[in-house]
């Protein structure tokens, strides 16, 4: 009984595997990458199965949209990165025609402040909260000397601090 269970469990997984491999040819191409890692210790699953990729379908084609509306920031924001970059087609699976329209729509939305040109809304707000957060003069003295050699992120903060004592 115990043997049966042990055998049957992997075979159940095995049924799933070959079918998927047959379906998508995405597997072999990517094998060189992160391939060894996850497949390693386990016996029953051999490598390739992890690299089955779901076939991406163009969202706009599925919903039969003939126009990408620049006013729908909620839809457009799904196709930009956090910092506002337009995502490439290979990531989102949008068809070439819709990607073309999408690019235009995103650029229009940017013009009317529905989408950021660069940097998310939260990104622009963070430094603003940091600056007035008190203790400015105390920190300003030690960091001001090093600010030129510091990393860009750190350099931005002291620069803001330096302004406060002057004023």
């Amino acid at each position, binding site marked *: *009984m115990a043997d*049966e*269970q042990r055998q*049957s*469990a992997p*075979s*159940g997984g095995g*049924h799933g595997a070959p*079918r998927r491999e047959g379906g998508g040819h995405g597997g072999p191409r990517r094998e060189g990458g992160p391939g060894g890692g996850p497949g390693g210790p386990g016996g029953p699953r051999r490598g390739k199965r992890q690299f089955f990729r779901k076939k991406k379908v163009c969202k706009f084609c599925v919903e*039969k949209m*003939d*126009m990408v509306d*620049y*006013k729908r920031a909620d839809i457009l924001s799904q196709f930009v990165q956090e910092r*506002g970059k337009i995502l490439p087609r290979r990531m989102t699976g949008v068809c070439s025609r819709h990607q073309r329209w999408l690019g235009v729509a995103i650029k*229009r939305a*940017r*013009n*009317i*402040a*529905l*989408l*950021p*040109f660069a*940097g998310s*809304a939260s990104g*622009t*707000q963070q430094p603003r909260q940091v600056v007035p957060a008190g203790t400015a003069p105390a920190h300003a003295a030690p960091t001001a000397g090093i600010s030129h050699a510091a990393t860009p992120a750190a350099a931005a903060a002291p620069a803001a601090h330096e302004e406060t004592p002057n004023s």
Partner: protein
Amino acid sequence: MQERLYDLIFIVRPATPEEDIKKVLTTLEHTVAEKNGKIEKTEHWGTRKLAYRVAKHREGIYVYQQIRTEHGELIAELERRLRVQDVVIKYMTVRLDEDIKRQKKLGGKREKRAARRPKRTATPAPVPAPVAAQEPAPAAS
């Protein structure tokens, strides 16, 4: 010249009272009426967060209009009026009719294709059924 459809969006300062927005809208209406244009739609989107700072504001009240006109100068005139207004911090006009024309064309194509196709879709897919029946059995024992 043929009629064209435009989108006009403008953003006013977040703390603007209703009357000032009304005032802006009436001036727009007058200008449109002068040139025999027509305002097809007016939508108030209300206060929205801006994606970036505009005139030192992080929020703004959006107003959206659709305008149909034969005269391109009307748009130039509208933009000039908006630029002069103090409460308006940003505006944009977009010509829509070509997009809509393209949309109609594609919509027509799809309908044609759909009308041709339906014969093929009636094939059943019996493959997954036996596999699904086998799998739950070992898990239960």
